[in-house]
């Protein structure tokens, strides 16, 4: 042994602990390369896509415990959806807004004012399912150009087409308009 080397003062175990501490500190920063996570996420998406649709499509005989409602839900859901759509369309046609439009003719402003005074109904801009699913809708005031109302079937007087209409809009958390009503 060379005398030039420093004497070892600490007990051997303490030196070993120090050495292991050094290794531990160096290793703390090490992680699996990022591409492994990317590969695994891709694999997970593949596995999920291949297993879960099959599970949902799997035919099974409903037990008594499942109840009759599940059977109804599975077989009559499309019919119920169509009926609901027809009912909604009928309600909108018979609503004060459409009646006002019919009564007043092409004077949209008066018709809308009348509707707003009567019931202030909302016009759905999205499907009812989409509106019902929105957890945090917000009501905001907005001036809508009359020209944009044509898309919703509202007749427009060309003389005042450049003006805007005061509305209240029900918007989703991401800003998507869900429903709208006219404010006098």
């Amino acid at each position, binding site marked *: 042994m060379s005398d030039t080397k420093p004497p070892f003062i600490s007990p051997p*175990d303490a*030196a070993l602990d120090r050495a292991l501490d050094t*290794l531990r500190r160096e*290793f703390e920063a*090490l992680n*699996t390369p990022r591409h492994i996570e990317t590969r695994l996420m891709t694999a997970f998406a593949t596995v999920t896509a291949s297993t879960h649709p099959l599970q949902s499509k799997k035919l099974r005989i409903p037990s008594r415990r499942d109840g009759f409602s599940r059977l109804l839900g599975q077989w009559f859901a499309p019919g119920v959806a169509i009926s609901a759509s027809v009912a909604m369309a009928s309600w909108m046609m018979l609503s004060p807004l459409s009646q006002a439009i019919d009564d007043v003719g092409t004077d949209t402003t008066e018709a809308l004012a009348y509707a707003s005074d009567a019931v202030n109904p909302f016009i759905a801009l999205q499907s009812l399912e989409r509106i019902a699913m929105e957890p945090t809708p917000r009501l905001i005031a907005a001036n809508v150009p009359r020209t944009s109302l044509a898309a919703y079937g509202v007749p427009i007087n060309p003389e005042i087409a450049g003006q805007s209409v005061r509305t209240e809009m029900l918007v989703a958390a991401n800003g998507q308009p869900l429903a709208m009503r006219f404010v006098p």
Partner: protein
Amino acid sequence: MPLTDPIQDLALLTEMRSGNTAAFAQLYRQHQGPLYRFALLRCGSAAAAADIVQEIFLALLNNTLKFDPSRGVLQGFLFGVARNFLSKQHEANCRYVSNSHAPDTDDASDELADTVAGPLERLLVNEAAENVRVALQQISPHFRDVLILYEMHDLSYLEIAQICDIDLGTVRSRLSRARARLLGLLKGDFAPKCERNAEGQPPPVTCARPTEQISGFTREAHS
């Protein structure tokens, strides 16, 4: 002491099995680090360690691993799986490198690894830490497992016993002998294996970085 919350792990596992991508991502991020570091210290190759982690999580998402929560925590289970993968890998390497593969025993002669299949990579920038890692690499795998899990991952004797499927007494004895062996290697007490085994056979690749005296470790101190 588990590095992750076992209850949260279970919840994430359930969510993952119902197809929740975020749950799988969180589960991966919580466990990949310890598993990777364990595999890296155990096998000494960054690429092989990354492959081991990938294999573990692929098996987890393919449901080929049967985790039973009543028998332990997920983290210990995953360490056990990693250890099994590494053992298989080591056995496969030994078939090519050496014919004298020793079984998983506690013989004193088995405290040093026979060979390391492949050149040792330099993994750490810090010279002192890299020397400790290389010395650790020269300890026999079943001693190394216990030492890594105890010293690097702060697991308890009981957790290590479950992971390695050995009893508590064996954990204690292996840890004690592994520490003594590592200390000896760091002091340079043990000659490089290429000098001991040079009987007409090619030197094992562990000799690529022969054991050297590390600063702070001297023979005088040991004697």
